[in-house]
């Protein structure tokens, strides 16, 4: 009798713990971001956002009862490093999907890996080349730099701006922006009459003086906050009084803090995150944006920015796919590809076999800086 009872208890405990183990099986997702290095302003909010989401999800019981684990690696903006880390995520850590990398250069580098090993990759980088031509296993969440340029050109066309000068940081981001500016110009009747770059932003008055001499109708600058702030300051300093347009790279408070008064009147495209409180309540993204912005601010004490938003979109897409399809790489990929009307921070996503970015230029709004604050222009 006693032995029978003991046996029953043992079996019961075994069954219970095995159910627990089975139920506690983690869903592993990989993430690679440029957390240190030149582009840390992208990687850090991305990492912060991911950690925040993981905590939140797991506190609510995980995905269908499975805890979510995101393994985050730092690429330092280095392509060789990134490729090794992605291979590590795929083969050693055996993740179900990968989000990131933060940069176009690193993303392009690992696209062949995703294709070869058949792992869904949701990049957080800007370049349109990541998804065009379409690759089966590769998606991306940020609006492309193409969309950013188009948004600006669209505005310019309606305001009679025809000749523009461009100044950019001589790195991946800036050069890619210039490429798009030149390519898309003819479509909107806009010509880039002169372009200059800088390697170190300390004083760019020489470059700006040359551009000023060409008398353009407007100036576009393609860089992230620090360099863009120096450009803005120097442009105003030399009396170069044309409208200044910027890239979505300045979508952070830091730009305004550094540029000060010179930033007055600067116009740039950005995801709606920056001005979520100024959106009409009927905007489908408003509640998602508001809850992300508040949660991020509460957790980290800083304003959320669009880079973190791209990571939010990427991870949420994967989570949604996991919920629907379970821990299978191919099924996750299919689920992402079939996602429609996904409300993210970057826009409302509609994926399809031909469209792996899922956004249109409506995903961008144009923001104008007035009195040191972001205002919704259109």
């Amino acid at each position, binding site marked *: 009798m006693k032995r029978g009872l003991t046996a029953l208890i043992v079996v019961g405990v075994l069954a219970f713990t095995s159910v627990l183990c089975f139920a506690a099986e983690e869903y592993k997702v990989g993430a690679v971001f440029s957390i*240190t290095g*030149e582009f*840390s*302003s992208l990687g*850090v909010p991305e990492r912060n956002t991911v950690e925040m989401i993981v905590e939140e999800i797991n506190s609510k019981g995980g995905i269908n009862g499975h805890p979510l684990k995101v393994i985050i690696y730092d690429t330092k903006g280095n392509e060789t490093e990134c490729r090794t880390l992605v291979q590590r995520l795929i083969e050693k850590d055996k993740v179900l999907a990968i989000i990131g990398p933060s940069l176009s250069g690193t993303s392009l580098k690992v696209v062949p890996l995703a294709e070869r090993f058949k792992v869904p990759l949701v990049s957080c980088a800007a370049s349109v080349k990541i998804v065009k031509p379409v690759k089966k296993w590769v998606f991306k969440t940020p609006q492309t730099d193409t969309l950013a340029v188009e948004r600006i050109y669209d505005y310019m066309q309606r305001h009679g701006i025809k000749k523009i000068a461009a100044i950019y940081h*001589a790195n991946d981001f800036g050069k890619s922006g210039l490429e798009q500016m030149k390519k898309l110009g003819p479509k909107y009747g806009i010509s880039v009459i*002169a*372009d*200059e*770059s*800088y*390697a*170190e*932003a*300390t*004083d760019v*008055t*020489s*470059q700006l*003086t*040359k*551009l000023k*001499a*060409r008398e353009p109708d407007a100036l576009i600058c393609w860089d992230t*906050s*620090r360099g863009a*702030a*120096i450009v803005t*300051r120097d442009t105003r*300093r*030399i*009396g170069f009084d044309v409208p200044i347009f910027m890239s979505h790279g300045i979508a952070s408070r*830091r730009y305004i*803090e*550094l540029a*000060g008064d010179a930033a007055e009147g600067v116009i740039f495209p950005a995801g709606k995150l920056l001005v979520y409180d100024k959106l009409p309540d009927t905007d489908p993204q408003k509640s998602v944006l508001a809850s992300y912005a508040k949660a991020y601010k509460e957790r980290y004490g800083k304003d959320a920015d669009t880079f973190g938003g791209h990571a939010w979109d990427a991870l949420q897409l994967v989570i949604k796919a996991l919920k629907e399809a379970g821990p299978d790489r191919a099924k996750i990929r299919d689920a992402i590809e079939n996602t429609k009307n996904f409300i993210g921070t970057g826009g409302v996503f509609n994926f399809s076999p031909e469209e792996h970015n899922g956004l249109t230029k409506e995903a961008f709004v144009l923001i104008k800086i007035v009195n040191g604050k972001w205002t919704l222009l259109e």
Partner: protein
Amino acid sequence: MKLSYFLQYLASGITVGSVYALVALGFNMIYNATGIINFAQGEFVMLGGMTMVFLTGALKLPMWISFIVSVMSVTAVGALLERGAIYPLKGAPPITLIIITIGASILIRGASILIWGEDAYRLPGITGDRPIRVLGASILPQSFWVIGVGAILMGALQLFQRYTLFGKAMRASAADSEAATLVGISPRRMTLWSFAISAAIGSVAGIIITPIVFTHYNVGVMLGLKGFCAAVLGGLGSFMGAVVGGFLLGVLEKLAVGFAPIGYSGYENAIAFIVMLLILFLRPSGILGRGEVEKA
């Protein structure tokens, strides 16, 4: 080519040149006393700016106190570097010292990321940020401060080296450390002082250029390298050479960018190194140098 354009290039060149000059002064301080090239010099500049931002921003200390505390703490870092990593290695071959100072540079930058993160920061200019127009060119008021401080430091260092007992002791121990020991000078102490003073100079440079360049953890790298180019250009070991070299390098850079056809400014960074290579090939002692140059 309008005159005002040329003047703007010149003004721009003088602005960055004064930054290079300050960095070069720091290099020369250590080189004069020890013959070592300190690859971490740029980090002293970075630390100066970052600590100043931290003290005035996060701790909200008044300007003057922050300035003194900043300079003192970076000086302490310089002394620590010397005692910890240089002092134990007297007589080591150049490669060892190079690796050590590069290692120190990496370590300081890594620590900076841990403490302050990767963001860029700014300080207000001492006399404000409204640009001043001079003959059609626009100059930031802070630039005058940078030039002024550079000139004062150069003058002070020259006087120090030539007329004070301490300064002469430093030159003596660099020229011949054995002989110096015989007359009661401690070369080891001189080395320590040279690092400390160099760190102080670097931090002052860092503090006054922050309103112009917006400091961040990586700002010291290029400034350090170009500062070294400036030092070589002017002549390693000569304080006046550092200043001349700095301004000359800055002006050359900005004039080259200005006169280059549109679209070629991306090569800007190469200019400093091309200049340095040319000087090393053609006249290694630099424009004003009288120091020894090891040639094969």
